[in-house]
């Protein structure tokens, strides 16, 4: 008999239950693997995890700090999600975030103190979106018209953006640099009128802006003509061309939108907790973490929200670990493990494994003559 023990077959439709269960299980599996690793290095895994949970959720301050990190992560997650949905591999969220921050702080400083908040805040946030889109366009335009590989260009542009920011603060007397602090170079604080008000500890209203943009992105992709075209192009560019859709323009549009989302993350940072172009507070790798967020959320803009919250908690737990003598890079390791399990978990969402039916036990099978 060629009876096989297991059969792997594709599921037609991924069930919603599974698409929630699998990411959750991936996180748990990553924690278990991380725990084993911690145990091998002589740590008490339970204690470490307890400390992490405490650091992320243990107090109203901890929760508000986690939410502060959540806001930009939602946006970098969206940046990756909309781009990946169309097979545009924008991994330049990092650089686009920084350029969003550069534009936002630049505009805020230029506006000065005299503008009312009702104008200053929206203008500063818009500026960050423009900044991110601008930085993305440097990779997007050559991709669309010359066919360059955006994985390479967006990645390299991250380093350029980082160095431009460092130059503005550390290497020059640019308007971005704080003139009050010549010994310790830092970003010039933006005027109070351009800052988003806080409402709970240090938490500002930026979190609601991020959530609103995620809902808007969902609406855009699933409920509008533009989004329908985007899904067609993402599924098959040839078919889209055949249906009369301008594929190049579409790809360019999505690329710029992706950059704008990442730029907004920088804008929320500047107009929120950071309050200026401060390299030490901006260079956190949130652009890259957004890729993990998008993957775990299976590119669904709404799922990006809870996933970003979870990743923010992980990030905020890092410094707390150092206080108990565990390297904070443990958090990076856990992030990596989660991503690996989530990607592997995709297989179980897309496929079903079952035992074959015992066909040899059915001798009464007669041929149905029509």
């Amino acid at each position, binding site marked *: 008999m060629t009876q096989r023990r297991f059969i792997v077959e594709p599921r037609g439709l991924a069930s919603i239950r599974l698409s929630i269960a699998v990411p959750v299980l991936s996180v748990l599996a990553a924690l278990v693997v991380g725990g084993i690793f911690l145990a091998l290095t002589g740590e008490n895994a339970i204690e470490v995890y307890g400390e992490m949970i405490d650091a992320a959720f243990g107090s109203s301050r901890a929760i508000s700090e986690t939410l502060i990190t959540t806001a930009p992560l939602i946006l970098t997650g969206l940046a990756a999600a909309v781009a990946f949905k169309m097979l545009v591999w924008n991994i330049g969220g990092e650089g686009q975030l920084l350029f969003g921050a550069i534009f936002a702080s630049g505009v805020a400083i230029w506006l000065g103190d005299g503008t009312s908040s009702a104008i200053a805040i929206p203008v500063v946030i818009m500026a960050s979106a423009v900044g991110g889109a601008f930085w993305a366009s440097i990779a997007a335009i050559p991709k669309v018209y010359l066919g360059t590989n955006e994985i390479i260009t967006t990645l390299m542009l991250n380093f350029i953006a980082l160095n431009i920011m460092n130059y503005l603060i550390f290497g020059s007397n640019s308007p971005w640099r704080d003139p009050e602090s010549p010994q310790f170079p830092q970003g010039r604080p933006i005027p109070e009128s351009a800052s988003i008000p806080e409402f709970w500890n240090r938490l500002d209203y930026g979190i609601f802006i991020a959530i609103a943009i995620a809902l808007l992105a969902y609406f855009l992709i699933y409920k509008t003509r533009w989004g329908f075209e985007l899904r067609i192009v993402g599924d098959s560019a040839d078919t889209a061309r055949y249906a009369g859709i301008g594929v190049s323009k579409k790809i360019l549009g999505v690329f710029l939108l992706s950059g704008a989302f990442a730029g907004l993350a920088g804008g929320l940072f500047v107009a929120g907790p950071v309050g200026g172009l401060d390299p030490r507070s901006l260079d956190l790798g949130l652009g890259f973490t957004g890729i993990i967020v998008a993957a775990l959320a299976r590119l669904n803009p709404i799922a990006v929200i809870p996933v970003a919250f979870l990743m923010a908690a992980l990030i905020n737990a890092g410094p707390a670990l150092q206080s108990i003598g565990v390297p904070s890079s443990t958090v990076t390791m856990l992030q990596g493990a989660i991503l690996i399990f989530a990607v592997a978990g995709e297989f179980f969402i897309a496929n079903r494994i079952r035992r074959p039916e015992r066909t*040899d036990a059915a001798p009464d099978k007669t041929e149905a003559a029509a």
Partner: protein
Amino acid sequence: MTKTEARLAIELRGVDKTFYGVHANENVDFQLEAGEVHALLGENGAGKSTLCSILAGLYRPDSGEMLLNGEPTVFRTPKEALAAGVGMVYQHFRLVPNLTVAENLALGHPDLGQRLNQKELHNTAAELGERYGLPVDPAARVWQLSVGQQQRVEILKLLYRDVKVLILDEPTAVLTPQEAEQLFKTMRQMASEGRSVIFVSHKLHEVKQVSDRVTVLRGGKNVGGVDTAEAEPADLARMMVGRDLVLPTREEAEGFGKAVLTVTDLMVDDARGLEAVRGISLKIRSGEVVGIAGVSGNGQRELAYGITGLRPPTGGKVELDGEDVTDMNVLAHINKGIAYVPQSRLGLGLAPGLTTEDNLALKAYRRAPYSKGVRLVASSFKEKGAEMIERYDVRGVQPGLPIRLLSGGNLQKALVGREVELEPKVLILRSPTRGLDVGATEAVRNIVLAERKRGVGVLLISEDLDELLALSDRLLVVYEGQIVGDLQTNEATAERLGLLMAGQTEAST
């Protein structure tokens, strides 16, 4: 081993294979004797390709067993099947285009070392080609060859490995009648040497002509095997479909309306930038079906691309209802009333990962009732979708599932239905029933004839002569990007068309 078993090359017993919970093969028994040409008949989705793929080691059955020369055998990979002497020529060839014919023969051959003796290889290739009536230049690179020649290379590859069982999956679909004749001779010769040939086809007259025995599959089951000599084509058709069936034929038209599509001296390049359409002129009148016959790769694709705006022509003119649309983009062509059913359903005509409802709206989504401003109206997608699924009899649709899970016939009914739903002035179809079963073929042809009756000008580009003869009012033959023949359907015969398709001019007539 008894005597009867000794004659069997391969036997399948109770083979089962399911995909997505659907039986592609269900409890199939199949016997292949040494030295016979065995035809495998069946509608699309009847399980022929699955059965062949199991024999060739590409799929493993969920249950059931295979006996090779009486011995129970399991092929885990095509490589194992080849080593055991079973090889297959797939519909989509698996050759390396940049290598020469001889190099392709050597590829993956177990007895050849790292260094190739090119000269010896060329000699062997030429010798084999001559012996089996499959002449092909061993030094030619595969991409330079016509489809028919590439098929010869595939067969030579198997013969070079001295395969005892050859499986040919719809080999005649890409051949001219003359090339098919030659292939049949080759098949008979291989059989006379004691090899077994499995010949998959839809075409009853070919089966009748070349095979010794026929096995008919329907709905994944073996519904019977007969000696070809005793089988009447009508009986075979009935076994395939499970009912009596008459393919629609065209009624003679009383007259045609004014010209809806006029193409003048059209020039279109292929993807490599080489001239593929070299000055084609044609005119289609309202209510007329103009057929384009030709071996594939003679500019048919580029002709369709040029007319629909998918590839801007490098010269000439396309006029729709008297308006010059040559330089307009694809969307303008769609809006002005050119509908197009491409040959590649999932590669071009449909978005494979989107749902059937989405695909049915793939061109009309820009207008009401699908769109309201920038917003899409989800209920319209659902209602219009259900309506079209019913009207065009698209079966197997499950809400929320991607369209690629449908069978070929249902994909095509959805695609053709969507295009005619646009109420076009001109309908362009490329090989609209290629690979379809008789039932779906009937449905598609009925739609085309209904459009003709409605006054649509139809351009039917096909490699299937039976189809062209059944549907066209006028036939043009294309060869190397030019029209080499223009005939009324009643003066066209397969013979005459075949010669024109092969580039022979009609000087002698």
